[in-house]
């Protein structure tokens, strides 16, 4: 027999304390108080008359003490949660999936997470008898919620507070963490994955068995799979919304798609997607300084079926306030550059020649970005955002000899400056290759020559082009204004403003130390630098902006993990409330003693 709730030392200490308490109470109860009376002889005679005759009656106080002791010790034993039985002999690490699909409900309305918790509890109860157990919560980030323990009560407390995150779980990382825990014990062990999917890697490791305990059953759901909002580049102050709904049901669905801005309904549309159909809803012409959008599916009807997952019925997005970028273009005359910048409605452009630049050196701080067209000012400009077109060699930027007609062989499509652009067809007739330094990022390469580099160093960003507008056809392509726009966004560090949402788990950066972030539930969280606990979808607020956390792009069909379910165990049977029985026994005993005392059976 083992004790799940108390260690042996704690159990012995508790037993001694209980025994001491019972004996002390008995002695206190039996310790007489002094009472002066006029004459004790009458009392002597009364005692003689009322003296109990039965041996039982004279021994009741001692019997009561003994029984109280026995019952107190039984109570302590019960508090220790005695276990008799067999479980896994060794270390069991339970990896408990806690991502958004675990909130899906079955036909009885029971969540997958509830089944998983019941299974985890049963495993803990069984395996703590013969081994030790740890629990890893596989949410957005794997975390150990119960370190290795022999006490089921520890795990029970931790399991009681597990909730599902709104994002996808990294089950592979959680399993790896579980395996690491088992390895650290240098003993036999296993990792029990309680999840509704089995798409995680199971390394062939004979020392640590990874066992899947599947939960959940396939379900039907209608989901918002995308919600984006973009400012209209042609209409300053306006934005448009794109929302995508997908049916993961074999039936025709009916629902209302309601798009709101902070509770104000912007759009409401009845949709009837067929099985597997994707419906894209676009709305434009909304005007607002900034918006906090939600797209929600309401009144969902799956022709008799039920929408199993409520978490995917809503998505969030924000439209940040429109901010103008002040740009200083220093050129001896370049209509391509000037026109491309002037066409951007969010740019306030000022064009000067090199002499004009000298006059504005003291006020360069007014401009978010400075564009230098084939100019190398002396002394160099001290500005945090420089766009160098037809870069000229300076102390901080080395430039190679001219190269004729370099062919673009590679470009960094993942960089924000080249987002949505292809450079493989761009022609350059003459260039002076740039010499990148260690931390420079080469965005466009022509063979071994760096044609465009991006530098982010010491809080300053520089984007340098090794060619000018006269020696490339880039300026004649429709992509040029977009390239310039991307360049300004990157240089002005406004990339994040062009994301209308972020995924759960991504940190929310907040200026100020400490800063306060309001969560979707309205709770104020004091953070330093960033809030990392963004597992809940919704609109978060910092002092200067709103951030949408949305898991729409993680929506998918509600499948269930395959494989054998032999390892599945039901919830443990409810234990008889032995503590209550024992407590009632003590109470009953005290009552009997009291009654006997009151009836004069004792003395």
């Amino acid at each position: 027999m083992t004790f799940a709730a108390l260690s042996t030392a704690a159990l012995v200490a508790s037993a001694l304390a209980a025994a001491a308490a019972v004996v002390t109470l008995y002695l206190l109860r039996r310790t007489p108080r002094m009472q002066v009376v006029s004459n004790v002889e009458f009392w002597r005679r009364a005692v003689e008359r009322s003296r109990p005759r039965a041996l039982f009656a004279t021994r009741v106080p001692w019997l009561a003490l003994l029984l109280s002791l026995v019952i107190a010790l039984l109570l302590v034993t019960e508090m220790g949660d005695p276990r008799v039985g067999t479980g896994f002999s060794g270390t069991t690490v339970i990896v408990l999936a806690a991502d958004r699909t675990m909130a899906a409900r079955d036909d009885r309305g029971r969540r997958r997470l509830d089944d998983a918790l019941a299974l985890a509890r049963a495993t803990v109860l069984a395996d703590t008898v013969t081994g030790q157990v740890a629990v890893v919560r596989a949410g957005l980030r794997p975390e150990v919620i119960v370190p290795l323990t022999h006490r089921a009560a520890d795990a029970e407390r931790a399991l009681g507070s597990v909730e599902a995150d709104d994002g996808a779980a990294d089950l592979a990382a959680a399993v790896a963490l579980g395996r690491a825990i088992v390895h650290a014990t240098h003993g036999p062990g296993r990792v029990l994955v309680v999840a509704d999917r089995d798409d995680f890697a199971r390394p062939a490791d004979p020392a640590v068995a990874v066992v899947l305990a599947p939960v959940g059953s396939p379900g039907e759901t209608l989901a918002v799979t995308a919600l984006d909002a973009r400012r209209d580049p042609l209409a300053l102050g306006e934005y448009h919304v794109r929302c995508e709904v997908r049916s993961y049901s074999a039936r025709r669905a009916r629902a209302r798609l309601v798009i709101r801005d902070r509770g104000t309904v912007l759009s409401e549309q009845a949709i009837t997607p067929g099985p597997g159909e994707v419906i894209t809803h676009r709305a434009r012409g909304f005007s607002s300084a900034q918006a906090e959008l939600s797209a929600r599916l309401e009144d969902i009807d799956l022709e008799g079926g039920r929408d199993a997952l409520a978490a995917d019925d809503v998505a969030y997005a924000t439209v940040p306030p429109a901010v103008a970028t002040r740009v200083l273009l220093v050129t001896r005359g370049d209509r391509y550059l000037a026109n491309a910048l002037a066409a951007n409605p969010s740019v306030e452009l000022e064009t000067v020649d090199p002499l004009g630049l000298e006059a504005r050196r003291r006020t360069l701080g007014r401009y978010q970005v400075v564009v230098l067209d084939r100019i190398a000012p002396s002394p160099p400009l001290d500005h945090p955002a420089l766009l160098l077109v037809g870069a000229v060699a300076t102390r901080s930027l080395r430039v190679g000899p001219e190269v004729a007609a370099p062919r673009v062989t590679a470009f960094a499509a993942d960089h924000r400056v080249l987002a949505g652009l292809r450079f493989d067809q761009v022609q350059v007739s003459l260039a002076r290759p740039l010499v990148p330094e260690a931390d420079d990022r080469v965005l466009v390469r022509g063979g071994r020559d760096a044609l465009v580099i991006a530098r982010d160093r010491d809080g300053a960003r520089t984007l340098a082009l090794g060619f000018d507008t006269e020696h490339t056809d880039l300026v004649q392509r429709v992509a040029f204004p977009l390239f310039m726009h991307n360049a300004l966004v990157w240089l002005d560090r406004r990339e994040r403003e062009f994301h209308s949402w972020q995924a759960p788990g991504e940190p929310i950066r907040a200026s100020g130390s400490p800063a306060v972030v309001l969560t979707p539930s309205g709770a104020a969280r004091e953070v330093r630098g960033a809030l990392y606990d963004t597992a809940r979808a919704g609109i978060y607020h910092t002092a200067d902006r709103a951030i949408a956390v949305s898991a729409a792009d993680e929506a998918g069909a509600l499948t269930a993990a395959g494989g054998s379910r032999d390892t599945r165990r039901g919830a443990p049977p409810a234990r008889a409330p032995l503590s209550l029985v024992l407590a009632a026994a003590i109470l009953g005993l005290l009552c009997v003693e009291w009654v006997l005392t009151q009836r004069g059976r004792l003395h």
Partner: protein
Amino acid sequence: MALLDRAAQRLLERLHLRVRPKAASGDQGGHRSDARAHGLEFAERREYVGGDDARKIDWKAFARNRTLSVRTFEEERDARVYVLVDVSASMARGAPPKLEVARQVAASFGFLGMNQVDRVQVIPFADAVERATPVLRRRDDYPGLEAFLQGLVPHGATTFGATARGFVQRFPARGYVVVVSDLMEAADWAPSLRLLAERGHQLCLVRVRCDEDHAPDFHGELELRDAETGDLVRVTVTPALLAAYRDEVAAHVERARVACQRVGGRLIEAPVERPFEQVLRAVIAPALEQR
């Protein structure tokens, strides 16, 4: 503080301590005696027998009935009132202490006796008769009586048998004996009461009682200490024990009451919890004769 206030004194002035003739003394006083012929108050008319004083022949009756008869008169004699006050240590128990009420009872009887010009003596006792007051006869002596009573201090253990024997030796003259005590001595009081009666005393036993003695409300484990002897008894007080104790005390008091009644006396209960004026009006006064 005076033991008797004016209201109590006015009430006592309306009461009369009736002393049976046998308990009256030989001196003339305010109580009727069995002695005939020398008194002033007409008692009866009887047939003349030889040897009767011829001066007592009722000639008017002879004229009417033609038979000789003589008129007899009762002689009024004074009485001795002995007030025995229990001053044992147990008299300090109760709230207020039983001795305080005993002082008031003794003062009442003393006042009553002095008011009808009897010879009053207050005699404290515990295990024996102690120093008594001088004979007090007049109302002027009452302040001295109060001072004496106020000076009584509870001490010792009650031994009424020894007290009675000592009393009859030291005070041979018959009288009205008032015993003021809590009766909290377990020995039988009947022989001592009979001894007093056999010596011609008229008895009145006043039991000053408190709830602690009469109906204690104890419970649990107790070590009882005797207020007089210091003896210890350990008990677990239960309702049954309390009932047995009450039965013991009640039987003891009943024995004393019966013994008292058999010798022509009476037992009066004076609970300390009641205001003394109420005790005086409701308990003591009805037991005495109204003027």
